[in-house]
């Protein structure tokens, strides 16, 4: 085995520790700088990520959050951002001690690599309220929509916020990814007519835990959509209402007319209370490592990853250490490999 597994330093330098302490108090700027460390692709940032996560995970339980990560996805124009804005305000009203972070992911331009991140426009968050934090992220040419960078940031935010909301444009493929990094996924739809249901049957309906029909400014269209959705979910054999515990709920909301927001907010607050609604951090690490292995080493790497390494991997504490370990293994297998990661 490679020695590189021990190359990470778990002790944080004082300035980083200071930043983490202030971020734990949800001070906006230190927190924002910390988030950047989880997005940046440098060796130094990797080292910092390891030590920050190690530090946060070793805090006494009373001082350690185990936040809920909520994926909110849906077609463009479904009004996700406005809805999220209203939901956050409603949740804070019901539970004033709550803290919520929103991570909004927008696509990058294929041509220039740049991006326009415009979701802030639609959330009407007050200034100087540390309980709310909004951050935009570019998908950065990662076709999945929600990539490794998003996962990295949720690793951090879980420890800092009661609820982290990931907002993405969902068009099929990325729902699967959102499902991986969220504890619970909501699909936001616009009110629709019968023929639209046909297209939705194609697989993606199975992914979300909860459905939200937003922009229900008008009651008749809202009801129609509700029944259409319900019957189409039955068609694809997704359980609704059969068993109160595992039923997929449908919410009807209107961010504009303030309808259904409080109901959905209360539902989300209940999820937050329920600690069983949390994905295993290890499973997530393995998922993203596997994805990374495939990107870096293709099917060859995947075969080795799947066949031999999983039990070994668990011995290495953080994501960074596991990654380093894999690099070591790959180097042993492919001697010509000089660098990766």
């Amino acid at each position, binding site marked *: 085995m490679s020695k590189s597994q021990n190359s990470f330093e778990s002790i944080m330098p004082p300035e980083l520790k200071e930043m983490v302490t202030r971020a734990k108090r949800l001070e906006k700027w230190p927190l924002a700088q910390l988030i950047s460390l989880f997005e*940046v692709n440098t060796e130094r940032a990797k080292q910092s990520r390891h030590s920050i996560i190690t530090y946060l995970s070793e805090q006494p339980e009373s001082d350690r959050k185990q936040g809920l990560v909520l994926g909110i996805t849906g077609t463009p*124009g479904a009004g996700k951002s406005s809805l999220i804005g209203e939901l956050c305000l409603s949740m804070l009203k019901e539970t004033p001690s709550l803290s919520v972070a929103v991570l909004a992911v927008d696509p990058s331009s294929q041509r220039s690599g740049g991006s326009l991140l415009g979701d802030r426009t639609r959330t009407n968050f007050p200034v*100087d309220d540390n309980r709310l934090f909004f951050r935009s992220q570019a998908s950065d040419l990662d076709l999945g929509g929600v990539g490794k960078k998003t996962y990295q940031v949720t690793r951090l935010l879980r420890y800092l916020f009661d609820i982290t909301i990931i907002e993405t444009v969902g068009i099929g493929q990325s729902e699967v990814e959102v499902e991986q990094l969220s504890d619970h996924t909501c699909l936001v739809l616009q009110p629709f007519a019968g023929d639209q249901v046909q297209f939705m049957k194609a697989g993606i309906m199975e992914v979300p835990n909860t459905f939200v029909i937003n922009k229900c400014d008008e009651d008749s269209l809202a009801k129609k959509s509700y029944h259409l959705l319900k019957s189409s979910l039955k068609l694809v054999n997704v359980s609704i209402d059969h068993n109160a515990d595992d039923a997929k709920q449908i919410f009807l909301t209107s961010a504009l007319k303030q309808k259904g927001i409080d109901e959905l907010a209360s539902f989300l607050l209940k999820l937050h209370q329920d600690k069983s609604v949390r994905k295993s951090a290890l499973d997530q690490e393995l998922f993203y490592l596997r994805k990374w292995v495939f990107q870096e080493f293709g099917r060859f790497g995947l075969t080795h990853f799947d066949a031999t390494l999983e039990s070994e991997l668990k011995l290495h504490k953080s994501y960074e250490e596991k990654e380093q370990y894999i690099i070591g293994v790959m180097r042993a297998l492919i001697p010509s490999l000089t660098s990766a990661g």
Partner: protein
Amino acid sequence: MTEQNSHTIYDKDGKPTRDRPWIFRTYAGHTNVWATNELYRDNLSKGQTGLSIAMDLATQCGYSSDHPIAKPEIGKVGVPINSLDDFHILFDNIPLEEMNTSMTINGTAMWLLSLYVALAEERGVDISQLKGTTQNDLIKEYLARGTYIFPPEDSMRLIVDMYEFCLHNIPSWNASNICSYHLQEAGATPVQELAFALVTAITILDAIKERDCFSEEEFERCVGRISFFVNAGMRFVEEVSKMRAFCEMWDEITQERYGVKNAKYRRFRYGVQVNSLGLTAEQPENNAWRILIETLGVTLSRKARCRALQLPAWNEALSLPRPWDQQWSLRIQQILAYETDLLEYPDLLEGSVVIESKVKQLKDQAYDEINRVLDLGGGVEAVKTGYMKSALVASQSERMGRLANGEQIVVGKNKWMEGLESPLVGDSDGGIFMVDAKAAQKTLDALAETKRTRDDERVKAALARLAEHAKNNTNLMEASIECAKARVTTGEWSETLRSVFGEYRPPTGVDGQSMSIDDDSNSLTSVRNKISDFIETHGYRPRIVVGKPGLDGHSNGAEMIAVAAKHAGFDVVYFGIRLSASDIVQSALEENVDLIGVSLLSGSHNEIMAQLFDELDKNGAKDSIPVILGGIIPEPDYEKLENMGVKRIFTPKDFDPMAVMDEIMDVINEQKSKQL
């Protein structure tokens, strides 16, 4: 009777005559009601025949002068109006019954009309005699100008309320004025101008029809009250054709869609302000000729001649115009109308094969676009989905691309740039207008005095009635007029309706846009190289935030910078207009950006930038996040702004967006090297 010829205009008795000129207006208002009243009386004595009132941004956005967001804006781009007491001073010694008064007011149009009606009533003037226009075109506010307040449906309701009230009580008032002017400023092509303005008119008339508050005869008269406010640019042959297309299309739409029988009510009545977008900060004296040429587009053709005309000043790309600059523009109109023989002839272009063919092409394309928008659900829907906004941003990006690539020549800007220094900008005031900072205090004092002396019970009751009528769909005009008489303030009226309707933010239109800049342009290559070096070194793509603080809603500049920055390869956080300095700073902090880009056109840059740096300082980020500024910034202010901490100032002279991006990258790299 002598034999008539085809080149002479004859009156109804068969005598040769000449046309009366259009109404000469100057868009004016500044500082406070006292100074503006003096200006109006002066302009009227110089031969001006109508008033065109410019309100300051706080008044336009529904804030009284004592609101924190209003303070940097008091008296900057227009006169501040807080209550009926202000109107009494503004119109002191000006006979309302003789005036044709145009108010450039939208989000608060109903309020300003209510003040005007209340003023007339308190003076004992019969309100049915009042003549004028409230601009009141909210669709173009969502698309281009930015002083909207309420959601589209509620805004439409206010507009229809005003049409209903005016037709019954002030028959010569134009309750709204559909503006393609601002669409052109926002980049619209002639076809988009025709289509989007006519869609707006259709949206309003459909809403009026739906309310069903008029008899057939009244509805015809109401159609006759729809007037337009149009822009004319440098391509004056195309502009003449556009105006002829407008007239023909309006005649056809009112006849076919609304069955208006009386031809008089189908006439396309319009006023004009010619294009400011094409005016240059470089060799600004050339703008005088541009303004004259643009004037031809809307006056040459008798069949499609404007009813009223106002011209920008030669130095608008530099700053707000001074009284002398406005006088010079007024003289252009007078020379054209009185020294030349233009008004002696019938339509000069009738029968021109070229013009007829061009008109037909514009009409065909505009009808296609109108049908597309109507198929998408009409004007309100096309605002909410961002369809029209995106189309405008795309046209503007193309225009910027043509300028940068040199495909579109602008003299003194991208061609023949060398020239002698203009003596016009060498005056002691630098050729620009400065609002007296102390004048704002007078406005604030007057507002405090109004609040102190009014009957609070009457105010409370008037506002309660306003809220109630807003909720139960009663026409809001009467409740608003009572508010005016009770000395309710602009802020109170707006706040009451905000609490019922809510506030609206339309789509920004920048999503998915790109620029048509040649991939091999030097500046684009340079900035892209700098960005890839940055990513290599720092492990992430440089991030910037672009925003417009304050109440100025002319978003073109900020939108173009946002789109250009994405095209260059930045991650750009863009969140639109009408933000406070603390909104922008908070987003810069949360997003951990490498640079803040701010765009300002209203002349309030000194105050707003000071607020912004205070906010940064408060958060310990003053020396960590560099700030750049773009907009109409007069040179005498540069030093002050740079001392505050502004790293670069960009003006309309910086027309190559990629050169701007390249410099932004330099600023970011300077900052990074300081931190390492």
